[in-house]
């Protein structure tokens, strides 16, 4: 009896965040360090936000933050792998990396991440682990504390209400609309991330029992499970933008098409993006967002620390700072980023909660209640297999 | 012994003899080498000057005022050269061209005075700051000769220096050059294919042995 109590107590202790003194050691070590955060640099708004986080880190903790702007997150993954191959086990160039999905799975599998740290961060207790399971399950891959979440992403569709007052709410409705309005819809070319996410959304919506998607691909049932997806795409293809003969490269390219009026329905992995773009004068003020009945795919963005990071303590301080309610509230501000918070608003102090309540969602952002259910990302093997098959079916004009 | 002595000077290329010379040029004397184009005249001059291309091999000796020049770099030979074209340095003024050959130690007013007197000698007073590209053909030829003489050579080589000049200028410049050679008492070799040049030079005339 006593032994059991003791064991339970021990387990609780282990699960507890780092003690105050441990964290003080980290803070002391971090002071004066310069943290190199490798993060995709394709969006000036995100870059400006990271700059602002850097100012906060310097003011509050004496840590300098340098964003290494990547054209592609894989550049940083490849860099860490190259360092491992070259035998550089300390003093690595990457301190912190913005990551999720396949890149995380790859780094985890290669063993190039530092020891688990996320659940020992002081601000971890504010994270909404129960309400937002994606913060500890990255594309069905358990994070095991190897990465710390900092933003929630949800797939939402965007349309210009001036040109298209009523948006379709189901996949069948979307297909009908595409056929009735040829040339006004497209998706980024897989294996692009957003393009593949769209395919997963269609797959999810057309699969009677979506739970199979949470398991790795079973070659025996793959054909049957994906047949409705390819049928849907085949029907849509000739009516897509450019008759499906060309596809945009990525999410920003989609955004540009909507801004130019080339497409009438677009989508983004960020419910607040449209409002933010309207505020920046990059989208017409009549653009609105919508979701499909039954919900849309959502996931979390994380930061991870490579095994050989030169400034590990500083990196942890930044990861913790990213979970700070003031930082999270700023990220959720549509005028700044419009990223949804990873925190549990119920766990916040009234003062911090008020920061979120005070946010103006902007003209285009759906209130959380209207966003509908979040569909979990399928297992990463689905993404890989679907992208591969898409390339086989549509990747070449012949 | 004063003068220029080519002691069995022989230039070969891939084992074949290109030109062979055996002669003595006394101070103030002008020896003329005549022959059609391609007969190795310019190669002979390059061998004397020490600027043969690596493809050529030279044997024999070049002796100037008793000094054996064989193997010495061109700048140490003290042999002046005049070309078919004047080869003035286009980025320097007339004075800059003339000063190029003057000793480094000669500075300031003394240097300017030497240049001025050379200009006067050539009938080009006041031309010091001129751009060489703005001079007439005859003026350029005279600047080229004065530049050569200011370097105080111990011998002169002349590679068809008058062939580009028109008939009227030709006699005038030829007289000017030959006069200076006689005045300074330099041994000189003149390469030409113009019999008139050879006659005016007044010295021995020989075809180079193939």
């Amino acid at each position: 009896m006593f032994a059991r109590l003791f064991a339970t107590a021990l387990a609780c202790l282990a699960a507890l965040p780092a003690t105050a003194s441990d964290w003080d050691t980290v803070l002391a070590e971090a002071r004066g360090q310069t943290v190199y955060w490798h993060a995709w640099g394709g969006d000036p708004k995100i870059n400006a936000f990271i700059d602002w986080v850097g100012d906060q880190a310097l003011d509050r903790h004496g840590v300098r933050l340098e964003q290494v702007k990547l054209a592609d997150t894989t550049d940083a993954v490849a860099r860490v792998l190259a360092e491992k191959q070259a035998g550089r086990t300390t003093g690595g160039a990457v301190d912190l990396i913005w990551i999720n999905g396949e890149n995380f799975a790859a780094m985890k599998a290669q063993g190039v991440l530092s020891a688990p740290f996320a659940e020992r961060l002081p601000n971890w207790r504010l994270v909404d682990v129960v309400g937002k399971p994606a913060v500890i399950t990255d594309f069905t891959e358990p994070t095991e504390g190897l990465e710390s979440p900092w933003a929630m992403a949800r797939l939402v569709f965007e349309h210009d209400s001036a040109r298209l007052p009523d948006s379709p709410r189901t996949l069948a409705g979307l297909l009908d609309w595409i056929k009735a309005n040829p040339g006004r819809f497209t998706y980024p070319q897989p294996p692009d991330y957003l393009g593949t996410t769209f395919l997963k959304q269609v797959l999810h919506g057309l699969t009677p029992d979506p739970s199979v998607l949470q398991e790795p691909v079973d070659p025996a049932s793959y054909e049957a499970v994906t047949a409705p997806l390819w049928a849907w795409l085949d029907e849509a293809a000739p009516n897509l933008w450019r008759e499906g003969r060309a596809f945009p490269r990525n999410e920003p390219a989609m955004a540009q098409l909507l801004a130019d009026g080339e497409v009438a329905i677009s989508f983004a992995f960020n419910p607040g993006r449209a409002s933010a773009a309207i505020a920046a004068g990059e989208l017409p003020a009549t653009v609105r967002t919508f979701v499909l009945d039954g919900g849309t795919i959502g996931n979390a963005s994380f930061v991870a620390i490579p095994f050989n990071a030169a400034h590990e303590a500083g990196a942890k301080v930044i990861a913790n700072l990213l979970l700070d309610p003031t930082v999270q509230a700023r990220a959720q501000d549509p005028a700044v980023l419009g990223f949804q918070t990873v925190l549990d608003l119920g766990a916040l102090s009234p003062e911090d909660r008020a920061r979120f309540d005070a946010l103006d969602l902007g003209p285009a952002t759906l209130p959380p209640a209207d966003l509908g259910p979040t569909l979990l990302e399928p297992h990463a093997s689905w993404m890989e297999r679907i992208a591969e098959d898409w390339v086989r079916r549509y990747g070449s004009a012949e | 012994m004063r003068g220029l002595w080519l002691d069995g000077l022989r230039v070969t290329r891939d084992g074949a003899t290109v030109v062979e010379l055996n002669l003595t040029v006394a101070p103030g004397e002008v020896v003329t080498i005549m022959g059609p184009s391609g007969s190795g005249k310019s190669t002979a001059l390059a061998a004397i000057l020490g600027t043969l291309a690596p493809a050529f091999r030279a044997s024999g000796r070049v002796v100037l005022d008793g000094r054996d020049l064989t193997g010495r770099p061109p700048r140490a030979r003290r042999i002046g050269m005049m070309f078919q074209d004047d080869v003035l340095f286009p980025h320097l003024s007339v004075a800059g061209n003339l000063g190029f050959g003057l000793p480094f130690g000669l500075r300031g007013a003394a240097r300017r005075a030497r240049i001025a007197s050379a200009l006067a000698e050539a009938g080009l007073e006041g031309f010091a700051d001129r751009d060489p590209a703005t001079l007439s053909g005859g003026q350029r030829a005279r600047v080229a000769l004065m530049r050569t003489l200011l370097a105080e050579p111990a011998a002169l080589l002349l590679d068809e220096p008058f062939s580009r000049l028109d008939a009227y200028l030709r006699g005038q410049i030829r007289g000017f050059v030959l006069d200076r050679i006689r005045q300074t008492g330099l041994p000189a070799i003149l390469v030409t294919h113009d019999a008139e040049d050879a006659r005016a030079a007044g010295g021995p005339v020989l075809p180079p042995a193939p």
Partner: protein
Amino acid sequence: MRHPGGALLRQAPRLTLLVIAGPVLAGLTGTVAPAFGLGTGGGLDAFRALADWPGLGAAVRLSLATGLISTVLALALTLLILALLPGTRAFSALMRLLSPLLAVPHAAVALGLAFLLAPSGWIVRALSPWATGWAEPPDLLTLNDPAGLALIAGLVAKEVPFLLLMALAALPQTDAPRRMLLAESLGHGRAAGWAFAVLPALYAQIRLPVYAVLAYSMTAVEMAMILGPTRPPTLSAQIALWMADPALAERARAAAAAALQLGLVVAALALWRLAEAVLRRGLLRAAALGLRLVWLDAALRLLALGMAALTVGAVGAGLAGLAIWSVAGMWAFPAALPETLSLRTWVAAAPDLVADTAMTLGLALAAALAALALTLTCLETETRHGLRPGAGAMALLYLPLIVPQVAFLPGLQAAALAVGLDGTPLAVATAHLVFVLPYVFLSLSGPWRAWDGRIATAAAALGAGEARIFWQLRLPMLLAPALTALAVGMAVSVGQYLPTLLIGGGRVVTLTTEAVALSSGGNRRIVGTYALLQMLLPAACFAVALAAPALAFRNRRGMAPA
């Protein structure tokens, strides 16, 4: 030894070749070895995976076709301009625009053209809705077309200025004006006279730059991504996509594709050489037949003028479009100009611009000066010892221009990491040197070798030593080409993306790494600001390269540019 330091000087060409070829060969080994399964034991799996890719045939055809066609067109336009336009006002205007055109980075030209040509782009906007009736952008495939026409247009626009500059540097050695006078006095038309009398001598001088253009056009990544087809993309664009794929198995497939890409470039060069020989024979026969072709001139002149104006106009309008985007607020279709103007893009970018510009300029100066010093040393050695580089040495010199960057930079990065030489500006400048050196050597060696050797003989006869001939005669007289070579080198350095990113470990940030990172987001506003700055920097270098000698020798008619 005849002069002190002579032994050291003699080694300079070898050292230079080592600087160029060493990193390329080391990187190539490090990158291509995985393609053959070396180090992983995968055998030829990578090639099998490559063969399995359904787009392979089309991608290979695209790479060959876009590379060859754009090179033919760029060369043809360059030659037309040189043959028919000198002496016209259009020609002098073109000369003034040459340096800025050359300096614009490929990605910026591509993005500018994309904005111009897109169905929602400037041309359609200017005509809509009053002339076209379009209130919404038409669904037309003007960009990313399967045949790669948009890509070819972009490549031609970017390579003509480079070929023109190289040709203009070589032209003084061809005695063109006298040859033209002779040909015209024999009754030849301008075009025919130029082709018969000047072209053979000129082409011999610009042959290697043409090869570099061909190799580049076949392997360009940024342009192919923006303007090229997507189903499938060109082979080089696909290699870049595989390299960026998180699935590491794709690295081996990328390596195999890089090996194939290298083979394609070699094959295309062989084909080009063959065509050269055939055309040369044809040209000589036509010349011997006594063809005068005077009637051709008017049409060809019109063609040259039209094409040159189109090229310059398209690039200029595209860049102007980007410039306007950099200050645009909302700018919806079909408005030809933004509804609102705003400086927020510039204000937001301003803090980064100063630091990035300083780093870019520092790297460019360091790499270009080092390249110029090595080039001068090599050429001086060549002159003093009569050492002409053999065909093998010239091939090595061209390695970095002909081997696709994606094929050797990852391996080079691994090598740099292994010896701990990465992540510093010095390491990046050294990597830039690999790419800068060939261009500097190319651009300077022609004028250097054409320098009148009698000047040196005359000076030696006046008692000048070799050092004095170098410092007081050869170098000052070749100041213009030397500074042009320096500016070319700086422009090349400014444009480097992959070497800066890979060797710099992301810590060395330049205008170009920022611009490309931003252009992956397709945001025309911010890309506009960076593209403008990226263009201004090398353009300033060229302006100095042109102005300095002109100022220094303003009273020397013999030093005027030919």
